[in-house]
């Protein structure tokens, strides 16, 4: 076999070729598409979102989209802030509903109508009218409704049957019904009577499901006028109902990771959490999972909240903004929505898309009932207000303070933060 001697000249030539190759390949890639947009997202490479991005790129519309996984809403927002301050904002970001004000007023999320009025109207027409207010901030259309979820109830049917409870789960439940069954599960399966049962109930220790309780009781965390409503009797009653099972010993408040792990391993009988778990829970759990609506408050009209994110445009450059609009058009299309539905979010579009699993029916029914937004934290200190509410929820669950006193103090602290 003929070999080339390693000389200084051949070494330099090899090094030069090595350095030049990526640049040549990059040039080819750039020639293949006219514009390249970066999407800061909460979804990694093996997700339905990546499938949407790949399908869009496969169409070769002159725009190459790149999915950049930036962590959860808070982490992605922090990274986008850093990118904006460096003068290189992502073209798009999946922005949590709860950060709508911050996105518009601080991060400078673009009004889609300013970028292209006709295209913006055509885009939003792909979504049911009830979600239009969720992407309207300060009269601006700040994005396309993207991920929509709502808290629902998940039940371990193996526990349910072992405790001798009814086979048919009602479509609508209230706290009396739920807590009674949690007590029955605890009595029948607790104390080692069942090999995997450890706890009957978990309502999710966070700012979201507690908001559901406050609203279902007729109160508000922050009402439509932007007023903090935690010291209202209805809000206090809602939090008393929310904390009751923890104080009774039916619920061990933990984080979402521990809660999910406990449920899929068969240690937890009932969980109220995001409807997006309709995909993950049945995939991981070795037992039948049933779903129903989130528990209402007896004698009160149900007023459930949504969660999730919208796709906002942050590109200030005209070409980048137009390219972002092309991607949004694909996202809003039937094809984009069909690909996206695989992740387990609610279908908030006008397109008829078969449900990804029958378990999503409870969430879809709540959407049909009408959903409010999750709390959108206003002001430059809105993030602190959200954190403060989370802390107060934990304190009430832990019985650190009596609930009426905690709600009054939360009212004062959060009012100061959202009005700063």
């Amino acid at each position, binding site marked *: 076999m003929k070999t080339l001697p390693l000389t200084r000249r051949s070494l330099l030539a090899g090094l030069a070729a090595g350095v030049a190759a990526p640049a040549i390949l990059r040039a080819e890639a750039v020639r293949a598409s006219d514009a390249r947009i970066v999407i800061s997202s909460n979804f990694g490479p093996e997700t339905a979102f990546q499938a949407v991005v790949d399908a869009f790129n496969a169409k070769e519309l002159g725009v190459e989209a790149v999915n950049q996984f930036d962590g959860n809403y*808070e982490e992605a927002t*922090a990274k986008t*802030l*850093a990118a*904006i*301050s460096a003068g290189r904002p992502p073209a798009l970001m999946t922005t949590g509903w709860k950060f709508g004000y911050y996105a518009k007023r*601080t*991060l*400078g999320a673009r009004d889609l109508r300013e970028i292209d009025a006709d295209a913006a109207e055509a885009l939003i027409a792909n979504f049911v009218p009830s979600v239009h207010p969720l992407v309207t901030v300060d009269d601006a259309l700040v994005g396309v409704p993207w991920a929509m979820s709502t808290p629902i109830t998940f039940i371990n049917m193996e526990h349910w049957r072992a405790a001798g409870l009814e086979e048919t789960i009602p479509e609508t439940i209230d706290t009396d019904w739920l807590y009674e069954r949690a007590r029955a599960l605890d009595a029948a399966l607790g104390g080692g009577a069942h090999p*995997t049962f*450890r*706890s009957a109930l*978990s309502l999710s220790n966070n700012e979201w499901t507690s908001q559901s309780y406050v609203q279902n009781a007729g109160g508000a965390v922050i009402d439509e006028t932007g007023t903090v409503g935690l010291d209202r009797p209805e809000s206090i009653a809602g939090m008393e109902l929310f904390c009751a099972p923890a104080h009774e010993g039916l619920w*061990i*408040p*933990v*984080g979402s*990771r*521990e*809660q999910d*792990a*406990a449920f899929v*391993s068969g*240690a*937890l009988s009932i969980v109220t959490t995001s409807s997006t778990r309709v995909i993950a829970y049945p995939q991981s759990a070795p037992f039948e999972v049933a779903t129903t609506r989130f528990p209402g408050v007896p004698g009160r009209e149900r007023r459930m909240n949504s969660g999730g994110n919208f796709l906002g445009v942050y590109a200030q450059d005209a070409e980048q903004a137009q390219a972002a609009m092309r991607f949004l058009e694909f996202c809003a299309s039937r094809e984009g929505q069909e690909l996206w539905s695989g992740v387990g979010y609610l279908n908030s579009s006008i397109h008829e898309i078969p449900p990804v699993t029958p378990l999503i029916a409870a969430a879809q029914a709540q959407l049909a009932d009408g959903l409010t937004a999750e709390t959108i934290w206003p002001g*430059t*200190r809105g*993030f*602190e207000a959200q*954190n403060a509410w989370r*802390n*107060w929820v*934990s*304190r009430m669950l*832990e019985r*650190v303070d009596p609930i009426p006193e905690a709600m009054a103090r939360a009212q004062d602290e959060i009012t100061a933060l959202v009005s700063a």
Partner: protein
Amino acid sequence: MRGAHGGSLQTAGLVAPAFFAVAVFLYLPIAASGLLAVLDYHPATRAFSYAGLANIEAVWRDPAFRVAAWNTLVYCLVLVPAQVVVPLLLALGLREIAGSRLAPVYYACLFAPTLVSFSVAGAVWLPLLNPINGVLNEMLIAIGLPPSRWHTDARAALWVVCVVTFWKTFGLNLVLWYAALMTIPREQIEAARIDGAGFFRRVRDIDIPLASPTAFFILVTTVFTTLDDIVGIIDVLTGGGPFERTTNLPYLLWQKGLVFFQFGQASVVALVTIAIVALLTFVQFRFVERRVTYA
């Protein structure tokens, strides 16, 4: 022949990269923090205005700052002695079995947790600590003891963070102690033994004085680790909760700066942290180093 001027230039050239790195990556950020502490600044809008002492006042009045400062003190009081003394005792034990077949096994087992990152260390412990059906609770139940809520219990969370941090970090100090102890001549130890010195007497009068340079290094670096690196474990294990019971000053700094985007207040917390580190380092060098026996 090279002149004195050429020698100075050469010296300056050699020192310049280090000087540049320290100036740019250490002193410049400290100066910038000092400036940001008196400004109301937001990087997205790039708008800023003079805030005077408002940021300092806001931090001082913030209950979260007082909790974080107190927790920082507790973490130091618990973890620094534990991470200095326990690895020393383990290293002494390892020295006793040095040369045996089991020694490398013990050595590897004790050092292994050091290899994982702080955040991974936190993640590894999460399934063990799950208050509903974690491994530790299952063990407690199996022996008839009541389960614990561990890191989700406001009274226990800080101690759980201490335990996990200790588990992750003690291995490095163990290696340092072990290396220092193995350099001590066996003859000296044997002579002391023949003279009737017991184990603790030998440790106090021979091992610790002869290993004192390493001990001083361990003390200084452990204080840094306890103040700073613990943030990764706090973030993964508790997120600072329950209701801020496990935060410390660097975690509060990160939270105020990169979660709440209050850069002025974050800079105040940074300056307080820098002042504490500087003070502790000064105390260590002023009062502890004089006890160090350099060969």
